[in-house]
């Protein structure tokens, strides 16, 4: 696809030979990108919001004195603001604010670990496929086809229904159903790059296959991968909430926004606010990572505001886990 070419070519350092041993670099792609990124108000606000959530999640105990799983039936269904319960308590007397904070931990952990896992697996498969080509490539690409042909939400439901709803299974199945786009991307980059001169050069000076892969080639694909990863963070958080809604996601006493939303649904008629908080959190975080992803994309390739490919990827990663 044309888009692949455009994106990746934007990432390739202008002077290829320098990649082997640079003397003095012109401002690198990272720095240029960061400069542009900083000027993008959406991207920056996304970054700030995400950071706030990350900090809240990571240092949750500093922000609340309550244990999110602590049940105290004497203090159930308190109104917001009573007894230092910032947002009140739920039907089991758990502090809602504390649950939101600790949920940020789980939801973000799901988002980032799925993104990281998919990037690792996708990169591995994509680079092996792209570097070696031939039979190995064919095998992996058919695998990608297979994965892309099964409705992914169905596959998630199927696996969790069969093997049980454990946290690690959920992470695993989410990773196993979202590595394909990265693999395609990395493979595409590799196919182009391996023909290029500096790879030939590296080969000539006797750098090993693996050295070539990881030192020279990977670097060129890192930006699109990061952009892709931001999408997967958002998609994973949404998938988690969807699976929790279907009863196959996070299980108590753990807590996540998706689970809170599901619980709150039962009290929709009595206390609708309970379902608003986690819903808004999900919305904000997913918006934030999307803005960041867009920002990165823009900073790389300002002409292509919303590239087709990116929308396509959005569509793919989101629709399947959402509707």
């Amino acid at each position: 696809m044309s888009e692949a070419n455009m994106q990746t070519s934007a990432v390739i350092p202008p002077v290829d030979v320098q990649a082997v041993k640079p003397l003095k670099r012109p401002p690198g792609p990272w720095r240029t990108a960061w400069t542009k990124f900083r000027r993008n108000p959406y991207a920056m606000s996304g970054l700030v919001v995400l950071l706030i959530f990350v900090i809240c999640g990571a240092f949750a105990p500093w922000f609340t004195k309550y244990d999110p799983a602590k049940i105290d039936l004497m203090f159930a269904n308190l109104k917001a603001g009573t007894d230092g319960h910032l947002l009140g308590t739920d039907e089991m007397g758990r502090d809602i604010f504390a649950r939101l904070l600790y949920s940020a931990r789980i939801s973000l952990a799901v988002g980032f670990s799925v993104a990281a896992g998919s990037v690792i697996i996708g990169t591995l498969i994509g680079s092996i496929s792209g570097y070696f080509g031939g039979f190995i490539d064919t095998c992996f690409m058919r695998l990608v086809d297979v994965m892309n042909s099964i409705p992914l939400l169905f596959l998630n439901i199927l696996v969790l229904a069969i093997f049980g709803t454990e946290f690690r299974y959920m992470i695993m199945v989410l990773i196993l159903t979202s590595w394909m786009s990265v693999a395609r991307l990395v493979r595409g980059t590799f196919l182009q790059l391996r023909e290029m001169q500096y790879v030939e050069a590296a080969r000539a000076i006797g750098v090993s296959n693996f050295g070539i892969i990881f030192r020279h080639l990977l670097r060129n694909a890192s930006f699109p991968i990061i952009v892709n990863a931001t999408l997967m963070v958002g998609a994973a958080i949404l998938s988690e909430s969807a699976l929790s809604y279907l009863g196959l996601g996070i299980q108590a006493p753990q807590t996540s926004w998706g689970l809170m939303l599901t619980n709150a649904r039962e009290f929709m008629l009595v206390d609708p606010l309970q379902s608003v908080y986690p819903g808004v959190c999900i919305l904000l975080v997913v918006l934030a990572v999307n803005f960041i992803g867009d920002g990165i994309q823009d900073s790389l390739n300002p002409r292509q505001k919303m590239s087709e490919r990116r929308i396509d990827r959005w569509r793919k990663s989101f629709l399947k886990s959402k509707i």
Partner: protein
Amino acid sequence: MTEFFIRRTLQSVLVLFLITLVTFGLIHAAPGGPFQMMLAPGLSPEAMKVQAHNMGLDQPLPMQYLHWLGNLLQGDLGYTFKNHVPIGQVIWPTVKNTFILMGVAWLLTLIIAIPWGIYNSTKEYSLSDQTASFISYIGFAMPTFWFGIILQQIFSIKLDWLPLADMYAMDKEGQLGDLMMHLILPVTVLTLSFLAAYVKYSRSSMMEVLDKDYIRTARAKGVREGKVIYKHALRNALIPVITIVALDLPLLVAGAALTESVFNWPGMGRLFVQMAVAREYSVLMAITLLTAVIVIIGNLIADLLYAVVDPRVQLGKRGGRSA
């Protein structure tokens, strides 16, 4: 063209075959296998043996697989474990219902999205464009089921304007007006999810085309702007949109597990969720396979359509859709 078609078809068949292996393997990897799951405890060993034999579960796995595959090829999806009802009888009615829901949502999306996106392409950063952007971001980031629940609360419970769930009121089965009323809420939810991609897609596609040399030439030659857009640009801009449309076709059948569950819509997505809960693995296998077939056919059609509308596409070269 023929060669391309044949090759793509063969590829699709291979992928399908792999999918049958994956689904069958998954289900038989379940702890204890499917057999143990579906029999009530308390049955005498003899009764279990008889049942296992009746269901062909006492044969070795490869035999079971071949048997299942053979039946599939004859269009026999098998029987449900629990009550021995032909699976086709369970699935087919839901296909129609899903098709109605998704078809309406999808048509509505196209009707709104394509003109809007094209309009926005000439009015970058206008209020309309910003609104579209906003809706896209929200549409992507909002957990769909949450949105559905909120709509239900407002329009069905509080205001009592619209039906809460289901496809027909109990005594109005088959009445078009009643169906329409029931469609409004789920279609709204789905349209919001779809809309984002299509508006953005048609907008960016149009913009890309407007940026092309031949359009610039036309403009330079003094062709009226309206004519430039509608005569020269539109056709080319629609090509990628059509591809996406074709790629989305499978969604029309695969259904929306979450939306259908929230609105109790008797479609395939809801059926899948119900059957996952009931551990009717044979139905899950059938649905997964069926949707995979449709996805693959959809992809095939997308490729062919692309080839038809854009003769410049070099057939037979995968990923060769470069402009």
